[in-house]
């Protein structure tokens, strides 16, 4: 299994993201995954840069690592034609090493333009149509599309990469898994759940299965647990609330009863390399081909040291 590094747009300033991406390449991660948000989940995470500018910056300072979105939503706040152009440019700036991870989005980021937040079935329909629009435009030439959710008229993407990027689709439930398996070039998951990976494959899903895992290294375990709880109590927010709640304030409320223990149970916190290695190995055992590790909090350099010296040798 390949191991990549994940940058949280919700937590990091754009110049730091670029710097850490370069460091991740230096210390040998296979890829860098970047989230795309308009809002962080909660105010304390504190950031939310425009992902396509960050990716441009990363492209200009790296040479080898894969770079991709985990994930962007091409359906509401940004028109899929704009995402098609942005991703084509990213792929040209990162020749042969860009992937476009997409998902059906969260109200947290998509509500801002005042557009209505549709129910899940409609969002999946929109995602499918958006992916079709993106692929249509990537064929080159003048293209039009008059669909149920999107119109594209006489549009052509002039800056096309020599090699088109793969599109990986995020999925949790059965319906989104059907869609991912049908139209994705790969799968994006955030849980080490063998059943999900199996579903993707058994429904005919092709390509790599990539996962994301959060960890919180700190030499003091209590500090690590506190930091993880402070910045990511939202991982304890259950069910579909993550897709439905509209603002960081709502996530604050929904996460207010999540305890430190609950967070630390699902996130490897502290200095024990065995625990960190185990949380990554779970993804390999669940059938993932690649896992992107996200260090919670500002101390990315400490994480790089810890990971290369102590965790990587155990994997």
């Amino acid at each position, binding site marked *: 299994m390949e191991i990549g590094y994940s940058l949280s747009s919700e937590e990091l300033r754009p110049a730091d993201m670029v710097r850490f991406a370069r460091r991740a390449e230096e210390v040998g991660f296979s890829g860098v995954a970047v989230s795309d948000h308009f809002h962080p989940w909660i105010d304390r995470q504190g950031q939310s840069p425009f992902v396509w500018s960050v990716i441009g910056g990363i492209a200009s300072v790296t040479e080898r690592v894969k770079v991709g979105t985990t994930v962007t939503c091409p359906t509401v706040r940004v028109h899929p034609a704009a995402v098609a152009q942005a991703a084509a440019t990213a792929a040209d700036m990162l020749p042969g090493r860009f992937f476009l991870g997409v998902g059906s989005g969260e109200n947290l980021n998509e509500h801002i333009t005042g557009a209505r937040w549709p129910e899940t079935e409609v969002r999946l329909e929109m995602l499918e149509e958006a992916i079709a629009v993106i692929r249509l435009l990537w064929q080159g030439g003048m293209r039009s599309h008059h669909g149920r959710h999107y119109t*594209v008229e006489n549009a052509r993407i002039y800056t096309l990469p020599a090699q088109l990027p793969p599109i990986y689709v995020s999925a949790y439930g059965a319906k989104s898994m059907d869609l991912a398996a049908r139209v994705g070039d790969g799968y994006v998951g955030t849980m080490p759940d063998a059943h999900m990976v199996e579903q993707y494959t058994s429904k005919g899903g092709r390509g790599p299965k990539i996962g994301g895992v959060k960890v919180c290294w700190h030499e003091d375990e209590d500090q690590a647990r506190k930091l993880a709880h402070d910045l990511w109590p939202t991982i304890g927010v259950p069910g579909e609330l993550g897709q439905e709640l509209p603002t960081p304030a709502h996530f604050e409320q929904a996460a207010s009863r999540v305890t430190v223990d609950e967070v630390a149970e699902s996130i490897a916190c502290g200095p024990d390399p065995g625990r960190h290695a185990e949380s990554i190995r779970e993804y390999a055992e669940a059938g993932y081909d690649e896992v992107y590790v996200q260090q919670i909090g500002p101390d990315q350099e400490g994480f790089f040291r810890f990971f290369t010296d102590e965790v990587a040798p155990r994997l």
Partner: protein
Amino acid sequence: MCEEHDPRSLVRTAVAAEQAGFDFVTLSDHFHPWLFSQGQSPFAWSVLGAIAERTERIGIVTAVTCPIVRYHPAIVAQAAATVAVMSEGRFALGVGAGEALNEHVVGEPWPATDVRHAMLLEAVDMMRALWRGGRQTYHGDYFDVQDAQLFTLPDEPPEVYVAGGGPAALRVAAQVGDGMFATSPDAELVDAYRRAGGDGKRFGQLAACWDSDVEKATATAHERWRFAMGWPVQAELPNPANFEAASQAVRAEDVTKSVAVGPDVDRHLGAIREWVDAGFDHVCVVQVGPDQDGYLRFWRDELRPQLNGGRG
């Protein structure tokens, strides 16, 4: 010019422009090029991220982006704030009321000029509200922002320059801009901006085509710049094919009236002086065609020494 260059070349040129001593670099933002011969159209915000990362001193300005149809102004507000942070305050946002060429692609109606100006005014107002930070809700005549907050913000919001080819757009520039942007060295434009109460920076975009061979420069300019038929035409045609057709009758000698072609230093200096004489205080030079390095050498060795403290 995004219309002419692939993204990595644009980044390289921006770095070289900084080294050659320019004060600022401008980048256009298109979905389509004007003409097939221009051939490119990368996503400007990714190129800007790379330029911010790879340069240290030079100012970075969009010339210009359109925040009203294919992007929602809240998205442009986020993108501009991010590039301002990445460049540590070196970024300014040039905006305009757009061209059908780039905006029609999402299948929305193309509004009349006065409506687009009203939309632009509202969009700038909305972006400035978001740049103040905190949670913002804004229900305008054209756009809504609902419970939105920008978290990645520069210490100071970017300045906004508004493009105008006539008095109506320049009134928008005077009303909401920190400056104006024009593509012809016309003192009347500056006057119109001032009459409307504008007292900010005055940016002009000068097209040049340096080549040691004036005939070759003329041919390149004709091949790639004959689309510049004035904003009433440029704003309305939807596709490169229409610009190809509309510009069929444009002759090389028509293009060279407004493009400084060839190797003659005085010709290029004269073109820059026209802008200064018309009352502009910032001029950006577009070198038409692929030979960006050639122009930068010419600038550094021959033009710049003749310009006393002039802006680049």
